[in-house]
């Protein structure tokens, strides 16, 4: 790494401005949230241990766990297809994988509502078999799967591109079957991409709000997640509940960030 000098002259001014900017945007608001939670600590504890809050946390964690596993499998499979295979429609598939990053979460929720909701495309069929998706947990899961789709795949694809296929060729030359090569050579090499992708997936899954609000409805004890819990607490002017859950999610985010920083190095 190139050696860096201590800032001099105009660099000092820029440094001071940059620090002030980060303080205003990030540090001071986080401090204000922490202070206000500390100021009403017993009310916060009571709010976060209520049945509603525990159900919301449970649903968020459960949905995030399913997303991590599903995206782990899909991420490796999708990266193998997009990086290693050449076929008509590959660019379209690539663009579709990136699409969830470009959509507003509300649009994602609305899209699923138009498929599964009342008057939705699949509603008659689902109704006939007695399955409710919209405003039930499957909708929360589907919306979260949609918004987390690109993360693991992108990180695994980056690793796969750098890796090349010489190790796999060597394994094949030495007589390994396709599966043996995959389990013993390819997959272990993808570990770092999987860890970073899983971290990003967890952060996004736990933090998703707009999509799960629209298609899940944020119904207490049913489809309410940690974020929609905050939303309804704000609307009901229950600050300890809103601030407490927000600080909990922010703390998880900081912890995930540590994992991310460690693995990027």
């Amino acid at each position, binding site marked *: 790494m190139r050696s*860096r000098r201590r800032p001099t002259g105009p660099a000092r001014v820029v440094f001071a401005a940059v620090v002030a900017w980060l303080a205003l945007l990030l540090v001071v608001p986080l401090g204000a949230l922490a202070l206000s939670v500390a100021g009403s600590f017993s009310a916060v504890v009571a709010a976060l241990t209520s049945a509603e809050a525990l159900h919301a946390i449970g649903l968020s964690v459960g949905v995030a766990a399913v997303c991590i596993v599903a995206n782990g499998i899909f991420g490796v*499979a999708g990266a193998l297809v997009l990086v290693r295979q050449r076929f008509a429609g590959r660019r379209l598939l690539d663009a579709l994988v990136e699409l969830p990053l470009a959509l*507003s979460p*509300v649009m994602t929720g609305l899209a699923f509502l138009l498929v599964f909701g009342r008057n939705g495309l699949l509603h008659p069929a689902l109704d006939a078999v007695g399955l409710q998706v919209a405003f039930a947990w499957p909708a929360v899961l589907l919306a979260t799967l949609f918004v987390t789709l690109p993360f693991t795949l992108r990180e695994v694809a980056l690793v796969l591109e750098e890796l090349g296929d010489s190790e796999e060729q060597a394994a094949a030359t030495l007589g390994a079957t396709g599966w043996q090569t995959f389990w013993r050579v390819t997959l272990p090499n993808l570990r770092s991409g999987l860890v970073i992708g899983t971290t990003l997936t967890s952060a996004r899954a736990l933090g998703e709000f*707009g999509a799960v609000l629209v298609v899940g409805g944020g119904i207490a004890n049913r489809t309410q997640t940690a974020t929609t819990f905050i939303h309804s607490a704000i609307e009901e002017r229950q600050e300890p509940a809103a601030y407490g859950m927000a600080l909990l999610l922010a703390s998880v985010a900081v912890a995930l960030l540590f994992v991310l920083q460690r693995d990027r190095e």
Partner: protein
Amino acid sequence: MNHGPPGRLGTLALRGGVTAWVTALVAVPVLVLAWRGIAEGPAAFWAAISDPAAVDALWLSGWTAAVAAVLNAIAGTALAWVLVRWDVPGRRAIGALVDLPLAIPTLVAGVLIIALFGPQTPIGHWLVGIGFPVAFAKPGIFLALLFVTLPFGVRAVEPVLEELDPAEEEASYTLGATPFYTLTRVLLPPLFPAIAAGAVQTFARSVAEFGSLAAVSGNIPHRTLVAPVYVLGEVEAGNPAGAAAVSLVLLAIALTLQPLGAALARRAGARRA
């Protein structure tokens, strides 16, 4: 070349499985959304997007996103320059802080701003008193947008700046150029595609931003109601067709900006943008 597990059949099965998953999870819902936006004919579509509240919401989203993109381009370039060029105290902490908005849920970003500037806080109370409310007003919208897009400006510029030789800046300086001349003639020109890529990404994210704005903007029609929150309002008011029509406008913006941002990032030579 076939490397997928095992053999030709495996390759096809893997491709088929991945395509089916992406089609079911992404392509079908988005196509249904697009269809519902135009299904009732061009007149209904036009009526939905020319509703005064919709026009105001789209306009507000557009111009606040443009201002955020410019501000974030300046802040991001300054941050990247400090992080890459100088040995400043707390460099690693600053680097971690820059990534924080990637991990913090967007709704929580909104709550953070309310916790500091909300009318119930001393600062918020004082700001309302002097006629400059931040929460539930436009300054809150900017703070939220700049919070959630902070990493984009920095991370777009950083890798390109790493590749630039600081000797050029120093030479310009040693030869007697002013800091302003060095900045505008030596430092910025090669960084321009990267800065533009970050700005496009910031704009795209800002137009789509929902969670933080739903919390801080106050959602007053014609004044602080942004397009994504307007879409939510139409859904809740039982007008999914109108919501889908405005969503189509946002989708068109997103689909225009994505290739533009990607092309700029390629020109900048940044590996991750």
